[in-house]
């Protein structure tokens, strides 16, 4: 097995995630795209861990998973707050600070 | 005992058949014994008596009835998600069955992280329930799905935390190692009954049973399908075969959780050491026990007689029946919690209790 096949999978998922973050207006969908990006990074970490025969890759992937869980928790709380105040989770409408 | 080598495809087909048997046969047995008969006796009646001797074929009649009913899909529902949801719930049941050991070799997959895997896949059913609740296009279903998700997430935590105590004591996440640790363990030097963790982890056992009751949405915790408030919760719109899938999923999962509990707390497929010593050829050869007891290595390893591959399923079935008896006994005794009482019970009672249990177990593990 080539190392590159895992890295290319990660790269493709990463780009799809970027596309999602840039084009979506819905707050929850943006959070989902960010999850996709974090997961592609995780594939990279685990693949390099397997390549170097070192446990650090897996450990860092675990750390990223934990951070992602925290991120989703806070992110979803913010989205719910936006929904409660504006009856919509369209992030393009959350522009009160715009000059 | 079985010396012949089978090709990979033969063992795969055998395992597939066994998986169906492991999921369906105990489900049918417990539904007949407890859901049909025991609850009837609790209400001073006899239950089904007509289909087969003592009504034992009643379940087949019910399955036949469900199978011929019309498969109704609500008009404004999301059809694909609606149809897929029962299969997701059932998938979680089958994935749970994969890691349960029924003997030293009688296991579908011997995962290094067996119990952790079981707890992980048990939460897949929540996704199926949410899918069913959302796709039905009914407010009762949606309310039921949301309630189920909130409840299952809340009780997932005490479930996992109760297992952590066992894992600390056994020194392994592998289910075979947990069984070995209980069989070869000693209670202050007295090893006649081994060390089933129900004795040392009694608090964990109680928390595990309560959390399982909630995970299965059995009665004191049945707000997701509260029939007096929500018609039938997330399965309101389902009929016929798809309802049957939900039904199988619910009762088969109850059995598999009972299997897991018997592995974690009652010694799994093995029998107490004094029984094994009494019967020639059953006693295991234990290596690494001294290291496991004083904490220098993870778990002791033991090679068991392969007779346990036949004996183990029987032992497991006995323990499973005893534990599901408790589940259904509680189910048919107590009335339903209120929604806020449910969440308060999980977060303010069970989780702190489980955390204290973990702390005490950890301290004692280091001290002894």
């Amino acid at each position, binding site marked *: *097995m080539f*190392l590159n096949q895992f890295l*290319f999978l990660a790269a493709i998922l990463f780009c799809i995630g970027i596309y999602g973050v840039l084009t979506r207006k*819905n707050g929850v969908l943006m959070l*989902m795209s960010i999850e996709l990006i974090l997961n592609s990074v995780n594939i990279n970490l685990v693949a390099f861990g397997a390549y170097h025969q070192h446990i650090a890759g897996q*450990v860092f992937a675990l750390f990223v998973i934990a951070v992602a869980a925290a991120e989703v*928790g806070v992110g979803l709380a913010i989205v719910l707050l936006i929904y409660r105040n504006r009856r919509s989770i369209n992030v393009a409408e959350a522009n009160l600070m715009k000059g | 005992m079985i010396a012949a080598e089978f090709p990979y495809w033969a063992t795969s087909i055998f395992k597939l058949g066994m998986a169906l048997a492991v999921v369906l046969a105990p489900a049918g047995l417990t539904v007949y014994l407890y859901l049909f008969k025991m609850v009837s006796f609790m209400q001073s009646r006899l239950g089904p008596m007509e289909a087969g001797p003592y009504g034992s074929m009643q379940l087949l009649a019910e399955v036949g009835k469900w199978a011929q009913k019309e498969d109704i899909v609500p008009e404004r529902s999301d059809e694909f998600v609606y149809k897929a949801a029962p299969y997701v719930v059932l998938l979680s049941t089958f994935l749970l069955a994969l890691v349960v050991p029924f003997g030293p070799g009688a296991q579908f997959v011997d995962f290094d992280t067996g119990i952790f895997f079981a707890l992980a896949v048990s939460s897949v059913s929540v996704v199926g329930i949410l899918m069913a609740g*959302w796709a039905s296009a009914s407010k009762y279903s949606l309310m039921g799905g949301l309630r189920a*998700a909130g409840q299952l997430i809340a009780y997932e935590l005490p479930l996992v935390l109760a297992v952590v105590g066992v894992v600390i004591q056994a020194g392994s996440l592998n289910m075979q190692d947990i069984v070995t640790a209980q069989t070869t363990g000693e209670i202050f030097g007295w090893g006649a009954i081994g060390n089933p963790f129900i004795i040392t982890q009694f608090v964990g056992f109680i928390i595990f049973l309560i959390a399982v009751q909630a995970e299965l949405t059995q009665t004191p915790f049945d707000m997701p399908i509260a029939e007096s408030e929500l018609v039938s919760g997330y399965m309101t719109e389902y009929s016929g075969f798809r309802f049957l899938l939900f039904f199988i999923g619910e009762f088969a999962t109850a059995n598999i959780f009972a299997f897991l509990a018997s592995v974690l707390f009652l010694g799994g497929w093995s029998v107490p050491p004094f029984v094994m010593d009494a019967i020639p050829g059953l006693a295991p050869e234990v290596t690494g026990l001294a290291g496991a007891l004083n904490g220098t290595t993870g778990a002791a390893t033991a090679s068991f007689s392969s007779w346990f591959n036949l004996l183990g399923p029987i032992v497991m079935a006995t323990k499973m029946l005893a534990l599901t008896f408790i589940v259904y006994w509680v189910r048919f005794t107590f009335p339903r919690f209120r929604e806020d009482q449910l969440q308060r019970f999980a977060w303010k009672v069970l989780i702190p209790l489980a955390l204290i249990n973990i702390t005490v177990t950890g301290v004692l593990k280091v001290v002894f």
Partner: protein
Amino acid sequence: MSVLAVIAQESALSDQGAWIANIFFYAIAAVAIMAALKMVTTQNVVHAALYLLVVLTAVAATYIVLGAEFAAVTQALVYLGAVMVLLLFGVMLTRAKIGIETDLDHEQKWMGALVAVVTGAVMGYSLWEAFGDVKLPADQMPQTTQQVSDSIFSTYIVPFEALSVLLLAALIGAVVVARRD
């Protein structure tokens, strides 16, 4: 997933069986990419969440192919059990409609697509240059849970503790933000 684990582990260890793991990998990768594409293009929020679920499962399967069993199970526990349920919960609390929703995307989709393609091209080129035909070690051992825990509780104990504090802060923060007063 588990049958996959057996085949992947048995075959990844032996050189002549590595192609089985390869076939599994390409199948998983195809599923993951298709589901990811559907996720960013579908016009239904719940469908997007379910497609993300497929991607996350495929990623867990990839970890198993790479011999990282503990990470795979953690992925299942945290993502499938907690994060996805949380996301679906959020989607349903914000009244996701059944059927097609308009107004989920910005008007200038092509800008996003351009950025993604350019990023992908840059990363693809550099990956090809750096690791053109580097192979994974054929005789790799699966990384056991014991190694992971030993590593976390010795070398990486400080990040681990920092992460615990972060999780606690996130927990309290989420409660404070979402609380209705």
